[in-house]
Structures are given as C-alpha cells and as structure tokens.
C-alpha cells in the first residue's frame, strides 16, 4: 500500500521534472555531462518540492487534445490582443480621451478552474477589459468603453475558451 502510494507520487512528479529539465536545457544551452547531471538533480528536486506545495499533479482538464488546440487558439488570441492594444493606443493618444469606464458582471458558461483562469487572462489581454474578480461562475470585468462591453458580452472569447477545453453547452463549443 505504502509502496503503491509512493510510486503514484513518483509517476505524477515525473512529467513536471521532465518539463523543468527541458527548460534547463533551453536556458543553459550546454550538453556536457556536468550540466546535464546538475540539471537533472535540480529538476527532480524542484518537482518534488512543488509536489508537496501545490499537489504536483497537472490539472485533469489538460490533455494532449487541449495542447493541440492551443496553437490555433493562441493565434486567434494574439490577433485579438493586437487589435485591443491598437484600440487602447488610439484612445489614449486622442486629446478627448474617449473613455467611459464601468464594471459589468456576467455569468460564465465555463466550469473548471483552468478554463475560467484562461478566460480571465484572455479578457484581461483583449479590448479594453480587465477582469477584476471571479466569484464562482460570476465574472466582474472593468470595461473601458461601451464598445468593449458589447464586444465582451457577445462572448467570442468565451466560445474560444469553451472550444479549447471542450466544455460548456454543445452549441457554444463551435468557433463560429
């Protein structure tokens, strides 16, 4: 029993350790055995420590399908981010400063924590909107102007995230 629990711990720590080792390889750019050994030791140690601190396991909603879908999602999101920044930039440089900020609330269709986190981060990065609080499924979003509010409530981003994690009602999962 004890041995079984231990092997489970090891199994769940290994992906994280491998990931950390990969990062180590990228950042050191060295392949002699001293560096590799040191990297392996450090990766294993830190994976072990973070297992104690945060549970170490990856979110069960993360799988290889999500990883594959992440690339088109990231491309769409970067386009949205660029539009957002250009919009904020033009607003800021105009002498009249055309903003009319307020906080709006809406209920999300998303369930899991990771999807809500992704949605909150995406909202923060896109047109004139910053997520200020999430309570359960309720999002509180600060919007810079009227257009941003309607853009947000259209729910394009939400649909994108729902598609990414294959969540929410079926008719909302499409990318439109």
């Amino acid at each position, binding site marked *: 029993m004890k041995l079984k629990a231990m092997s489970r711990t090891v199994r769940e720590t290994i992906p994280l350790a491998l990931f950390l080792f990969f990062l180590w390889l990228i950042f050191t*750019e060295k392949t002699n055995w001293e560096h590799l050994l040191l990297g392996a030791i450090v990766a294993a140690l830190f994976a072990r420590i973070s297992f104690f601190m945060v549970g170490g396991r990856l979110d069960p909603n993360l799988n290889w399908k999500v990883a594959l879908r992440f690339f088109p999602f990231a491309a769409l999101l970067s386009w949205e981010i660029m539009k957002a920044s250009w919009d904020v930039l033009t607003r800021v440089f105009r002498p009249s400063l055309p903003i009319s900020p307020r*906080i*709006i609330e809406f209920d999300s269709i998303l369930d899991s924590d990771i999807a809500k986190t992704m949605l909150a981060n995406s909202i923060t990065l896109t047109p004139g909107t910053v997520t*200020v609080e999430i309570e359960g499924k309720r999002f509180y979003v600060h919007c810079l102007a009227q257009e941003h509010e309607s853009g947000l409530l259209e729910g394009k981003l939400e649909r994108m995230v729902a598609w990414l994690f294959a969540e929410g009602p079926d008719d909302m999962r499409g990318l439109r």
Partner: protein
Amino acid sequence: MGSVAKDVLTVIFGLTGVLFFIGGTVGLLRCPDLYSRLHPATKCDTVGSCSITIALALQIGLDIALFKIMVVILLLLVTSASSGHAIGRSAFKTGVMPWHKKGVVPWPLKGEDRWTGR
C-alpha cells in the same frame, strides 16, 4: 531572407514596440483612476515588449536562444495579465470606486451597498 530585409523588419518591430510602450506610459499618466490605468499598463506594455522580443529574435536567427525568446514571450503574456488582474482584484476587494462619466452608473446591476456602507 537578405540581411537588409532582416534589419528593416527588426527596425519596424522595434519601433512598433517603442510606440506601444510610449502609448502605455501616456495612458498610465492620462487615465483618471486605478482601473482605467490598468488597461494601457497591461495591454500596450505586453504588445510592446513582445514586439521588441520579436525584433531580437529576428536578429538572432535560428539558434537555441530563439527558444529562450519564445519562453520569455509566453511568460510575459501570462504574468502581465495575471499581475494586472491581481492589482484590479485587490482594489475591487477593498472597495475602490471606479471613476465614471457623469450619468453613467459605474456598476449597473447590484452592489451599490458594497460602497455606500463605507
């Protein structure tokens, strides 16, 4: 790609980055309150720094340092959004009232008591 074209692209991306950084700073100075200042701070600075890192990546070319740059861009995207959210959330939780134009209700649905009770 010829090296001149590469240099031109680098300059274009670098200047775009500078433009967005200036915009972020101007926005930070011009906006009326904490919440609206978060917008230029989180968005313009993200795009600015990403654009400058892309310019650097062009100069590096195919090298393992390219992966470093990609990791840096990913971290920038995640951390700037998260830190902006953290600042906004702490202000919201402590009851900072958002600035609003005359006639606009800053928070349309409910929760007026959240602030009038103070």
